């Protein structure tokens, strides 16, 4: 009202930045509201309730949703994470090595496996026995999943660890060496533990990514007991000819990824504050 009166009192006067901001925001809210209303009018609500929110179909998935699908998803994720952690740390150390071929191997690995779609890696793993006749990855699908997820995440974690190792002040190594520790001992006891602390937030984010990528295990061809969340949802959806289980799987992913993401941001903030 006051703005109106002022505008009326001096029609030549241009709008203040604050007034312009208020008008622009009002327009944005208006557009948003229109979109929501249009979508709501276009949607077939009874059909949505029937297809996506069928409590009967959702109930059919219990308790296997948690006891089989979520459990397997967690197993694939953790085993891939452990593999990726170990190989990623090794690659990061190789990258810093004074031995040039180690540096080349590590750099090459990172470039190749960050540049490939994870799906392609999983398809390749199925073909490994063709290259090495008689070769079997131990642990069946569990071993293959750990390998696939480990190979991909190692490339990303190598870069994360490299940044972490570089962030440890040079004086830490010098102090350790001046106490008579050999280089390797100083790395293991002094530098690596501090680097790992530094990279805990980004590693938590990597864990979230891996948790979602574990859905690729479905391309390895899994049995009913090896099924993970995405395939479980998909299978249930086709069994009951109703997509509700896919939505349920999605919510189950979020049950894990949102708290993990929150934890990562909290850790990041705390680390930022303590520096």
């Amino acid at each position: 009202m006051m703005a109106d009166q002022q505008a009326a009192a001096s029609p030549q006067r241009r709008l203040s930045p604050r007034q312009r901001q208020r008008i622009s925001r009002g327009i944005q809210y208006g557009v948003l509201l229109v979109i929501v209303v249009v979508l709501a009018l276009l949607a077939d609500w009874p059909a949505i309730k029937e297809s996506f929110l069928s409590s009967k179909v959702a109930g059919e998935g219990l308790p296997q949703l948690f006891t089989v699908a979520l459990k397997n998803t967690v197993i694939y994720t953790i085993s891939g994470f452990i593999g990726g952690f170990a190989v990623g740390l090794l690659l990061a150390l190789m990258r810093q090595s004074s031995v040039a071929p180690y540096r080349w191997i590590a750099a090459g690995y990172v470039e190749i496996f960050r540049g490939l779609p994870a799906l392609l890696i999983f398809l390749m793993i199925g073909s490994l026995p063709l290259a090495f006749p008689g070769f079997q990855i131990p642990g069946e699908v569990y071993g293959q999943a750990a390998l696939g997820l480990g190979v991909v995440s190692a490339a990303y974690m190598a870069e994360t660890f490299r940044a972490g190792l570089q962030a440890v002040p040079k004086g830490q190594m010098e102090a350790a060496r001046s106490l008579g520790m050999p280089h390797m001992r100083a790395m293991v006891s002094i530098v690596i533990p501090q680097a790992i602390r530094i990279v805990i937030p980004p590693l938590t984010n990597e864990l979230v990514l891996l948790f979602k990528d574990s859905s690729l295990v479905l391309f390895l061809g899994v049995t009913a007991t090896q099924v993970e969340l995405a395939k479980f949802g998909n299978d249930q959806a086709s069994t009951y000819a109703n997509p509700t289980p896919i939505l349920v799987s999605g919510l189950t992913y979020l049950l894990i990824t949102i708290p993990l993401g929150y934890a990562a941001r909290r850790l990041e903030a705390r680390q930022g504050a303590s520096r």
Partner: protein
Amino acid sequence: MSTVEIRNLHKSFGKLEVLKGIDFSVETGQVVCVIGPSGSGKSTLLRCVNLLEQPTSGQVFVDGIELTHPDVDIDAARRRLGMVFQQFNLFAHLTVLRNVTIAQERVLKRPRAEAVRIARENLEKVGLSEKADSYPAQLSGGQQQRVAIARALAMNPSLMLFDEPTSALDPELVGDVLQVMRRLAEDGMTMLVVTHEMGFAREVADRVVFMDQGVIVEDGPPAQVIAAPQHNRTREFLHRVLHPGD
């Protein structure tokens, strides 16, 4: 007997020659302070003594063992040398006690109980036994530096190297660290100290070495080098340090 002997030491970083032929020695039980303007090479000299910097040429002897010899086990040799850094360099992820025990256990292979006992003795010596369970970030700079001294002492070094140990400290914290170093000198520790603390050099040092542009300009008892310097460069430097702002 000499604890440290340095012969014709040269050190270059690329084309920059930082040390241009250093000869000097530290007798057992002596305290030698190295003074000089920044960029004079005094810190590099100290870091060459325990081979944190690899000398370009020349020899370094500690307890009669040539550290610069290609066959020498440098990790074993470094155990004879305690080093205290300008930036303290305490291990940030370990408690104060663990900072002082870890090298005893990993390097000297002392059993945990013995390492802890020796650590507590040395923390007592620097007046910080009550901080044993704190982390470095919870301590003031002066306290961190005293822990760093305890950490070095726990290895029973025959020589302590101090690289500007008070330069990163707030002025009111300098006194505690110097007090610890003074007591160490009284106990007969052999010390090589790079410092800007002229008061400490005058009172505690047996010898003062003045370095400038990579060479030793003057070397003698503090009464001579600080109170009655022979060289113009020494006089100019001391004047700048003792009467800043003139």
